[in-house]
């Protein structure tokens, strides 16, 4: 079986090896799931919202479960 080319050209030189992306926030900064997922097989990781300078962020509780997932 020949390999299927799943690469995606998003323009401006950004070519992804495949169109499988993890949504922002669900995958941290990529390294956190390295022990349980082969991160290299993903097309891209959308990192969490981030800031130029460190911020402490909001006090807890920061997460809660919802019927459809997690509110973070």
């Amino acid at each position, binding site marked *: 079986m020949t390999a299927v080319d799943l690469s995606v050209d998003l323009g401006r030189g950004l070519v992804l090896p495949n169109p499988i992306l993890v949504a922002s*926030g*669900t*995958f*941290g*900064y990529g390294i*956190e*799931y390295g*022990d*349980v997922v082969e991160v290299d097989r993903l097309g891209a990781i959308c990192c*969490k919202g981030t800031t130029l300078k*460190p911020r*402490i*962020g909001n*006090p*807890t*509780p*920061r*997460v*809660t*479960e*919802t*019927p*459809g*997932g*997690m509110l*973070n």
Partner: protein
Amino acid sequence: MTMRLAAAELVESREILPGQWLQAYHAPTIASSSRAGQFVHARTGDFSGMVLRRPFSVNTADVATGIITIHFRVIGRGTEWFTRLRPGDQVDLLGPLGRAFEVDPRSRHLLLVAGGLGMAGVRMLADEAIRDGRGVTLLFGAASSREVYPSSLLPDEIEYVVATDDGSLGHHGFVTDLVPTYEAWADQAFACGPSGMLAALARQAEGRRGRLGVASLGRKRGGGRGDPAGSAAARRKAFLQVSMEQNMGCAVGACLGCVVQTTGGTPQRVCREGPVFAAEELAWEAAW
């Protein structure tokens, strides 16, 4: 970190106290790699509104049988779901997660302090300490005798001292009242329980440093060179280590939901840098 995904079979499930359950799962890879203080993240089989896993401290781990136990209180739909499992049912466990208690190899006497469900956080350390030939005193606090962890579920070798808020069993008052009697005997202390209890213990540990001068007398620790805060070496030298509880999402460090504030000003993740911290790492006066 050697965390693994494992299909774990429920071996035994019983309600040991009103609303509190002890469950045993056959999970050999987790049993053989868990250390006291670590936890597992368990997925419910009901995805209609419960997509998040639930974190449980590893209560005991037996390498020979491959069985781990968890101890929890029913506090919502997720924990209630686990009580309906029957022996033979399988759950998906991720673990062991988090960083373990760090016992100084020189410590001969360990003081464990648990409040309520906090027993689940320190229970395994009693086993490890006895295995390593250490003396253990376990101070346990609960609201009343109805919520006192059964001594039959603890190793015979430990001294078990109980305090109840209403005086129905043991000392009448808080478990922290018992600490002054034992702190001079103890080389290190390890605690898990309500945040108010842990904060009180942290104040007692701070006072101990002032009174006993542990750092400048007897113990020559590190030759004056400080270990980085939060490192295993620094925690190993701390008199008091605490296991923290926090609302948790992913349990692998990605969602940043389970943070606690530190004296250094940088929030730390309970799931990744914790759940065990040296008491002096944490900003107890912080609002969160």
